[in-house]
């Protein structure tokens, strides 16, 4: 990407450091920080304030379609939560979602890192080809992407089966990838990883380009070979980037809904392949159990915080 020298300030201390530098406290002579914060806070309250408040309140009420059409909702306390949590279905979905999310997040970051390293190691034309290809994948509308992947994995006319048969695996003629949950999630992982890798790859790649050249040169002079440089210099320096994208992937993959739903439409066993996002959707839009959906949403929020707690804690320490 663009040479870093023209953009960044000269002090090597800043370049080498990848931690947030503590900024000296600026005494307000002009705008106070609160004024600067105001537009963002205002828009958050305007756009999300009421919906989130409604979500919390509704999770504590009896709220179905009847209430939507005028019957006043009654307060039922934690009954919705109890009802949701005691149904077996939720916990299997939770476990499934966590496993799926972790697998996807780590595979995505690993592949993204691989692409980034690859982009770094090849010549300019190849690198740009890779970047353009990743960008195309990122820009493709999700519906089209999932549909095309469904066709590729289709049991009757899919390219993948056709290829596998060509390669000698005759058992794959007419194989239905979406029939069993395990292979279903394999296909889902392929799709979601495919859609998520571009963001990770481009971020990590840009991170790699910011590793100071002096450090690399010095290492090479010391006789380090490629692999050692990778392990001891590059990877540690992009660790912050990696941890951020990993966190983001975990947050996003835990809530994945639309791709699973589209795949299920092709006939997968729904209750065995639902993830948390689908679960909420089914409760809310499918069954008009809005209170239940609200309760599960809040639960998912808490679950995500729990899953990302190590990161959150280090963040809070950093900001102290």
């Amino acid at each position, binding site marked *: 990407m663009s040479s870093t020298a023209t953009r960044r300030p000269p002090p090597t201390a800043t370049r080498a450091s990848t931690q947030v530098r503590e900024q000296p406290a600026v005494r307000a002579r002009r705008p106070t920080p609160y004024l600067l914060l105001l537009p963002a806070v205002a828009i958050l*309250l305007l756009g999300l304030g009421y919906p989130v408040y409604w979500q919390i309140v509704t999770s504590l009420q009896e709220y179905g*379609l009847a209430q*939507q*059409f*005028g019957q006043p909702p009654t307060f039922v306390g934690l009954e919705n939560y109890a009802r949701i949590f005691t149904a077996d279905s939720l916990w299997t979905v939770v476990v499934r979602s966590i496993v799926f999310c972790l697998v996807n997040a780590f595979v995505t970051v690993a592949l993204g890192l691989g692409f980034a390293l690859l982009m770094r190691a090849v010549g300019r034309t190849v690198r740009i080809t890779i970047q353009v290809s990743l960008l195309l994948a990122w820009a493709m509308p999700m519906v089209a992407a999932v549909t095309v992947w469904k066709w590729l994995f289709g049991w009757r006319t899919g390219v993948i089966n056709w290829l596998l048969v060509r390669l000698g695996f005759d058992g794959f003629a007419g194989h239905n990838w979406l029939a069993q949950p395990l292979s279903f999630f394999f296909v889902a992982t392929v799709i979601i990883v495919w859609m998520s890798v571009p963001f990770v790859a481009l971020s990590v790649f840009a991170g790699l380009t910011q590793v100071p050249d002096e450090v690399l040169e010095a290492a090479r002079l010391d006789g380090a070979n490629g692999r050692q440089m990778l392990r001891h210099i590059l990877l540690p320096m992009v660790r912050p980037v990696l941890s951020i994208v990993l966190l983001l992937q975990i947050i996003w993959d835990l809530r994945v809904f639309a791709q699973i739903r589209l795949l299920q439409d092709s*006939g997968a*066993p*729904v*209750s065995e392949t639902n993830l948390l996002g689908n679960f909420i959707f089914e409760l809310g839009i*499918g069954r008009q159990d809005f209170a239940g959906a609200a309760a599960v949403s809040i639960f998912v929020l808490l679950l995500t915080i729990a899953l990302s707690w190590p990161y959150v804690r280090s963040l809070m320490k950093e900001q102290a």
Partner: protein
Amino acid sequence: MVRNGGIAMVVAGMLALTACSGTAEAPPTTADETTAPETAEIHLWVAGGDTPQALRDYLIETFAAENPGSTLVIEEQAWGDLVTKLTTALPDAANTPDVVEIGNTQSPTFTTVGAFRDLTPLYSELGSDDLLQSFVEVGMADGKNYALPYYFGSRYMFYRKDIRTAAGLTPPTTLAEFSDAVKQLRTDSQSGFALGGQDWRNGISWVFANGGELAVQDGTEWTSTLSDPKTIVGLEQWQDLYRGASNVPSTERDVAYWDFLNDGTDGSAAPAATIMAPGWARWSIGDLTTNDAGEQVRDGMADTNKFGIFGLPGVDGGLAPVFAGGSNTAISATSQHPELAENLLRIIFSEEYQTLLAQNGLGPANGQYVSALGDDEFAKTMIDTAAASKLTPAAPGWAAVEAAFVYEELFQKIAEGNDVTALAEEYDAIITPMLNG
């Protein structure tokens, strides 16, 4: 201080919003219901592309002519999102559509929560018992009519005449004949009868044919009756049929079967000898041809030596009851212009419009006009099978059962060869609580 003032402003704004959100203000109506008719713009929501443009134009023109000063605006909503949009829009008096089209299986969800206006006073004027009764029933709640039939479709069997004739078979007259024939026609590369393992919409025809029911209502409570002996007979027949005649995986639903009847574009044989599909599947079946616009399309089964249709036969001859597709129509309870909305319904149920529906291949709600569907083989089969058709249970929670794909799962397990009686019991326990909303 600026800081406190800013936050106070924001909080005040938020409070104001939460205060307003609870009440939807009804715009003042200037019309006096008993004297001068109001003039207004009313909205009709149609679902999907079912209603052709010519019919929509007819409605708009006729409405404008009969209600001077008022206009009709028709908006199309996608089927998949219809329930979601109705859920948010119907209770909102300021933004509700006045008249809506709604799927027949979705009607009970809304009729039972008071989303619609009571149409009982209009019932006799709009057609009374000439209207398709199964659709009328599904639109009733507490003995009142809230949704009335709009149009119906039907399902029948499409088949490859050439393949059947080559095997020495003629169209069957009983259900058993049908099963035997398609099992005979099955080869490794061709299904005798292409049936998806999750395809319950076609599959319940076997339940109905044996006199079984999916659920019954006792007073106000609904119970799932999969364990009923007649239902089990039907399900077992279906299981036997699937395993003996179909090469389609157990995960397929009722989608795109029509592809299977067509020869492959590379000249390979058709993957199926028989399919069951709604009437409009016809236009996706046939040989490839180029139409006036220069596109490549299927010729709609033009070669009658190659393609044909028949209604699914009953157990003892006649026709088996099949699942009827179609829509109902209703007026929103919060509509600000109920009189104009009712006028629109009068137009929809008029002879002219019903005839138009039929001429366009959509079964009219009023049985008097079905002859306008035509008298070719397709029209006749459609009329006959629709007359024998049945609907899914009119339970308030039925739409939720569909949304959770419970029947798809049940049928897949049946298709995979599991014990039907055990499955019926298991799924009755799952479905009954869902049915009552």
